[in-house]
């Protein structure tokens, strides 16, 4: 009797212990082999000058120095930062506009609007890119045709082929993809704000604008952080859209880090440099995610 009793006592208060490793092992192993391993391998490769075929040459941190000194690389990172404006800031501002409006009004049929707003998120980025190439087409694209039809033909241009407008043109596709997510996320946040806060603001005679800055905006800190994190990471990763629409051109005017990774590793034989760009990208994503969430936490306290 006694041994059995101790066994039961041994098991009952806590959860099974070592068996946790068994449940975890298969997933963690695959994760380690196909994500962590390659990540470390990438760090290693980034310390070499290697064309992918012949023996590599150790160059230490020189590839990382290039990220700052190489004109082509530096501009690709600058482009990524500009794209954050279009992928992250613009969608969140549009989302806030809607969230502010929804906070004061009961919207009927919001489920329907939500489904439509969210639709661009589920369409493959390659399809989105093919679609927008047609829309931006200088010859028979609907954008130029509309401009000509309303007498603004002078504004018609080769949107993806013009050095000055190609980057914003690509950026606006990102805005189109992401504003629905920001709207849905932020309106969901608004619906969680206690009505009493709004009633109190109204008793104080707050107007729509004041109410937005006094009640809605502070309460949405968490949702804003999630939206900014998702969209910023999307802006920094952004490969499919660039590859299909512009291949980084004209010149290097829409070249982004993710495109440089592909171009250097697989087209121009600079594997070490490509790896260093990838690792730099990871570092930037870590730092930005950390900062955004720090900002959100501090507000919550």
């Amino acid at each position, binding site marked *: 009797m006694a041994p059995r009793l101790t066994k039961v006592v041994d098991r009952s208060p806590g959860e099974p212990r070592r068996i946790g490793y068994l449940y975890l092992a298969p997933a963690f192993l*695959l994760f380690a082999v196909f994500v962590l391993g390659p990540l470390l391998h990438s760090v290693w*490769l980034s310390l070499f000058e290697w064309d992918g075929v012949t023996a590599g040459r150790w160059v230490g941190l020189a590839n990382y120095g290039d990220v700052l000194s190489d004109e082509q690389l530096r501009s690709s990172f600058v482009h990524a930062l500009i794209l954050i404006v279009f992928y992250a800031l613009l969608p969140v501002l549009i989302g806030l506009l*809607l969230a502010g409006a929804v906070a004061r009004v009961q919207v009927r049929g919001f489920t329907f609007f939500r489904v*439509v707003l*969210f639709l661009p998120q589920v369409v493959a980025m390659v399809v989105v890119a*093919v679609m927008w190439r047609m*829309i931006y087409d200088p010859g028979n694209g609907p954008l130029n045709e509309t401009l000509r039809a309303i007498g603004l033909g002078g504004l018609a241009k080769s949107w993806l082929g013009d050095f000055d407008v190609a980057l914003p043109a690509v950026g606006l596709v990102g805005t189109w993809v992401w504003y629905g997510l920001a709207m849905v996320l932020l309106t969901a946040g608004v619906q969680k704000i206690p009505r009493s806060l709004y009633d109190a603001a109204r008793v104080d005679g707050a107007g729509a604008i004041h109410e937005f800055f006094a009640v809605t905006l502070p309460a949405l800190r968490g949702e804003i952080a999630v939206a900014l994190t998702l969209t910023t990471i999307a802006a920094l990763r952004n490969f499919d859209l660039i590859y299909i629409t512009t291949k980084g051109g004209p010149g290097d005017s829409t070249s982004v880090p993710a495109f440089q*990774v*592909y171009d250097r590793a*697989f087209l121009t034989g600079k594997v070490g440099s490509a790896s260093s760009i990838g690792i730099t990208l990871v570092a930037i994503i870590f730092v930005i995610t950390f900062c955004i969430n720090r900002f959100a936490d501090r507000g919550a306290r």
Partner: protein
Amino acid sequence: MTSRREQATTYAILGVFSLLALLPIVGIVFTALQDPGSGAGFGRLGGFHPGNFADAWDQGNFGSYLKSSLIVAAVVVSVSSLLSIMAGYAFGMMRFRGSETLFYVILLGLMVPTEAIVVPLYYDFRDLSLTNTYWALILPQIGTSVAFGTFWMRTFFRAVPRSLVEAARIDGASSWLTLWRVLLPLAKPAVLTMCLLLFMWTWNEFLLALVMVSDEGLRTAPLGLSFFQGRNSSDLSLLAAGAVIVATPVVVLYVFLQRHFIRGMVSGAVKG
């Protein structure tokens, strides 16, 4: 309390942005249905020629692309889901040494984009002569998928009342039986959401396929579309039809199960 004008403004904002989201998508469907002979233009309603889909299917080889995508997605989603449920169960309900550290490693892994690991993955797979196989598309995507799946399932298991598990254990159920008989029926919605997101991400993945695969027969749907565009950029309606074919499987799932997609992505889901 609110004025009629405010109400109208809210609906106007919603309406305008919903229309903006919808227009390009309706446009490409219209384009796909245009008369292919008479100089198609994006978004014009020019007749009804569903034959374009059949032509794109044949000329563009989309049957083969969809088959590859389906094989890859089926394996990635089923294997990743199974392993994620188990790992999430371990993190969410069991205490073992190092569990916090291991979980943080997975959390960091969630933020590693494919762009950062695709270079070594290619050379590793090449050295093993595994490029140009389904393995090169499946294994790395399982790696990134289990990171998200484990995170997602852990959140679910943490919210399950402990009394439920303790009751099962007092009845003498093993941890394995508890998972599948007691917890999984409760987890169905969470598992479905996870499967849908993983399916969407796998179906839409482009860079990995572009790098790993050069055989026509192994190309996935998005990769096939990009090649079809290269060969066929003059015939707008065929290209549009091809694009619609590639987007349709995920969009159809979304239309029927939108709640799951939205709930999942609004929770801040990202995958490497």
